[in-house]
């Protein structure tokens, strides 16, 4: 153990100061007080060190000891993470529950996955092989969906001088040894520890080129998120941030989901734990829990651990990325994380910047979002980390510091709108305030994987929506009846588009997630309807005749009535649209 030791002289919530801490390093992990609470050194000044404590500090007393562990704050990475739920500093909550039933106590120390858990290991390298850093030497089928590669810790490489044979081993067992150039020997285990605030190294960053398919129409077609990209979802309370995040966690085609419940509701986490094991991944037919890691720091759990939780999550994501997986990280919500920063900063009596947030808020956000990307890993595989962060701006006002700064680093901005939410228009993503920076980058992908019309259709409909919003201002003043027919058509089609395409029912069997080909066909049909009706209007046919409420209604209901795996119905609808409008033109031509 370490010889570093200090004494507590100051306690204020999660912030503790110690004396006699000259030899402590910044970011070093420490154990505080008689109960050995876990903490991290966040500042050193002469012999005074400041520590943020990841557990409740009530009952802590002055002059109790602070012991340094000599290493930065790290998490254990190894098999057993998938399907598990961790607290903000990477301790499995089910193991905490075994130690103290129902409630979370303090002073239970650092826990990681059960050291006695057994795994079936198949080795891919043998004695005498050279193991490069980050390369795998064995694999474990962690769940039916995840083949877990056992990799050497980045920074460690050498010749394998000892290795076990295929078989069943325990989590803590030594599986082999490598000898590096200096002749030092390193043990190979199923797991290694990694400091959460340090990016895991990769070979190189690759160009972003693939869509993160989500099954959500407004995302996949209007505001696409790319694999390896960054997205922010800001919205006041009740606008459906969490439902949107859950939808992405459930339906996106990432290989692995890391869901960080950061300062959110306990019952919501209970909902996830209750629901995810029952939900089936459409690709594989397996429960989606088989590809999900959950991190829960509910709003009443210690605040400093909230600050750490997003780093814990992103480190786990990077670990699976290094095996060649596409990982999506959902952080709900980054505002709570920023508030944790603010609270700790306030207790340190730092000079506040905007709205009491510390001046380094922006750089911390940047560090977080910049850990996303599409990479070639050390083991020559392609993997990506996509970050989707929810933001909870106070009062739903997007001009506050967290939203403003997030906008600078997130490429997709999905603005949730309380007006839409109140009208039960879900997902309540406001199409006028949202944007995606990946449209251009992904256009080749769309051309190759969907068709060439989808983006031009999308742009056409975007301008229609833009025009509609201007018209609605006028309608507010004078009513719809005074508008010219072509503009009234715009309003009608925009209504069909909003109800039939942009609105999506997360709780409807058919509509919860929609394959891209159906999305494309649906959009195509609405554009087709618009073109046909427009032709009639241009031919001088009055809007009252062109309007066909029943037909519009059928188009709107195609999301429910036409099954995702059989798109015949859309063709039928198209014929119906054609015959109705063609008949109309014939009738009026006479």
């Amino acid at each position, binding site marked *: 153990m370490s010889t570093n030791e200090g004494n507590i002289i100051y306690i*204020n919530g999660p912030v503790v100061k110690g004396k006699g801490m000259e030899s402590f390093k910044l970011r070093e992990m420490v154990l505080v007080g008689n109960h050995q609470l876990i903490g991290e050194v966040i500042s050193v000044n002469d012999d005074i060190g400041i520590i943020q404590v990841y557990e409740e500090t009530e009952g802590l007393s*002055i002059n109790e000891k602070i012991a340094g562990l000599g290493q930065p704050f790290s998490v254990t990475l190894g098999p057993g993470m998938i399907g598990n739920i961790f607290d903000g500093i990477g301790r499995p909550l089910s193991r905490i529950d075994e130690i103290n039933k129902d*409630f979370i106590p303090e002073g239970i120390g650092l826990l990681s996955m059960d050291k006695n858990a057994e795994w079936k290991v198949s080795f891919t390298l043998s004695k005498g092989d050279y193991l490069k850093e980050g390369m795998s030497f064995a694999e474990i089928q962690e769940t039916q969906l995840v083949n877990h590669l056992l990799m050497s810790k980045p920074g460690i490489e050498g010749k394998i001088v000892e290795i076990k044979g295929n078989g069943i081993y325990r989590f803590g067992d030594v599986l082999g040894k490598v000898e590096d150039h200096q002749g030092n020997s390193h043990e190979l285990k199923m797991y290694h520890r990694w400091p959460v605030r340090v990016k895991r190294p990769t070979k190189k960053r690759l160009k972003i080129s693939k869509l993160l398919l989500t099954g959500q129409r407004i995302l996949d077609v209007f505001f696409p998120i790319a694999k390896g990209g960054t997205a922010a979802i800001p919205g006041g309370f009740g606008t459906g941030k969490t439902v949107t995040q859950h939808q992405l966690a459930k339906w996106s085609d990432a290989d692995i989901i890391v869901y960080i419940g950061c300062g959110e509701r*306990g019952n919501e986490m209970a909902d996830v734990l209750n629901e995810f094991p029952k939900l089936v991944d459409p690709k594989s037919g397996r429960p989606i829990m088989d590809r999900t890691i959950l991190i829960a720091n509910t*709003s*009443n759990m210690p605040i400093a651990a909230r600050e750490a939780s997003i780093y814990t999550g992103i480190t786990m994501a990077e670990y699976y990325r290094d095996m060649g997986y596409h990982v999506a990280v959902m952080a709900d919500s980054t505002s709570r994380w920023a508030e944790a920063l*603010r609270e700790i900063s306030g207790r340190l009596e730092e000079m506040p910047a905007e709205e*009491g947030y510390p001046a380094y808020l922006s750089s911390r956000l940047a560090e977080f979002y910049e850990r996303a990307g599409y990479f070639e890993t050390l083991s020559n595989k392609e993997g990506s980390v996509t970050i989707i962060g929810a933001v909870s701006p106070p009062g739903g006002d997007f001009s506050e510091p967290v939203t403003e700064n997030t906008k600078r680093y997130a490429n997709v901005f999905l603005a949730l709108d309380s007006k839409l939410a109140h009208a039960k228009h879900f997902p309540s993503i406001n199409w006028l305030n949202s944007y995606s920076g990946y449209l251009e980058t992904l256009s080749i992908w769309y051309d190759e994987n969907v068709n060439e019309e989808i983006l031009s259709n999308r742009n056409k409909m975007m301008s229609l929506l833009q025009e509609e919003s201007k018209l609605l201002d006028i309608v507010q003043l004078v009513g719809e009846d005074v508008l010219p027919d072509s503009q009234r058509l715009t309003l009608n089609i925009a209504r069909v588009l909003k109800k039939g395409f942009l609105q999506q029912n997360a709780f409807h069997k058919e509509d919860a997630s929609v394959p891209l080909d159906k999305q494309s066909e649906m959009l195509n049909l609405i554009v087709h309807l618009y073109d046909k009706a427009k032709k009639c209007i241009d031919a001088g046919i009055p809007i009252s005749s062109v309007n066909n409420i029943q037909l519009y209604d059928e188009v709107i209901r195609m999301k429910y009535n036409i099954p995702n795996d059989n798109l015949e119905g859309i063709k039928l609808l198209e014929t119906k649209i054609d015959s109705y409008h063609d008949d109309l033109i014939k009738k009026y031509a006479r």
Partner: protein
Amino acid sequence: MKKEYLSIKKADGPLIFLEGVKEAKYGEILEITVDGEKRIGKIVQIDEAFIAVQVFQGTSGISTLNTSVRFTGKSFELSLSKNILGRIFNGIGQPVDGGGPIYSKEKFNINGRPINPVARAYPKNYINTGISTIDVLMTLIRGQKLPIFSGNGLPHKELAAQIVNQAKITGAEGERFAVCFAGIGITRDEGAYFIDKFEKNNSMQNVVIFLNFADDPVAERNSAPRCALTAAEYLAHNEGMHILVVISDMTNYCEGLREISSAREEVPSRKGYPGYLYSDLASLYERAGMIKGQQGSITLLPILTMPNDDITHPIPDLTGYITEGQIVLSRELFNSNINPPISILPSLSRLMKDSIGEGYTREDHAPLSNQLISSYAKVQETRALTQIIGEEDLSEEDKKYMEFGRQFENSFVNQGFTENRELDESLDLGWRILSILPKEALDRIDEKMIEKYYGK
């Protein structure tokens, strides 16, 4: 032996400061004697040079010499037994109803501990409040925290009393039910109103009351809801009862927190409230819930008055981010004599989605509720238009919406504070009003469902 200090350094607002203390625990409770009168304090900050102590009964009359302080080595704990039912306590858990103290071997830290998310049971059973708007549109679920966002002068206490009186838990026949009431900084009239309501309803033996009046010390505002929640946790988790916790008024709680924070010279955040307001509120609200394998539950119904009716004010704003929805009262409805004046559009229950519909309430509940809300949103647009062009010039469809809006407010929302409606009755009423609109306008409901219920 615990140390006793015979003088203090400084007294400021609700805080006193001591110097030269050698042994002190964060959060420790101190016994303070001021000219022979006993008070209780809690250590809120430990510094090398001093410790800061928050005095629950207030600091008036304290001088640097007449005050002695004894360290107890303990945290703030409450003795609890089943005998607390029917009793009235002050904000620090001392009886004020003339009855004797509560004796019990079991003592509980009033701060509680966070429930482990893996141990939480996801709330599923709904509470029938007998109020149409709540039952149909923002169903209250056992184990939920659902605040009432009110304004000064709005009838939140009548609504809270109505909910307490009428609440029935479905599927819980024969199970025990009790109410914990915490009055924080409320006027004595308000306190009397609630006690009177409980007595009239013959439910006093199932109520525990913690009262901190407006003229009581500010520091007690901080402990009153924690005492009530600790009592609730005891009754729910140790005695297996279903507890409804009503806290009025959270705004006073937050004001108290701000006062103490500024006395401690902390860096203020929005509107002078401390930066930890969110996590402090969460430490209260998150104590609601249910635990797997246990019978009891805690449902939390905090009331807060929005300063200046502003829902973006930090108190309702941060509350809304923690609680599972909100019930918002509207001054406009109240002035139009519609009671309870529940504003439908900004109100919401996040937990209802999994607890209504077939097997829970009725198959048509979810689509009906969606449709009512979205049609009522359309009514608002139509009304805005009417302001400009007048009702006569509206299209036929818009006229129907206007009629729907009127009926909805006058018969569905406006049920008064005494009527108790069964859920079926409320749902049928919803359908009757919805049938004013043409079938085609019902875009949230399956055709089959429309056939079955429309116009019946």
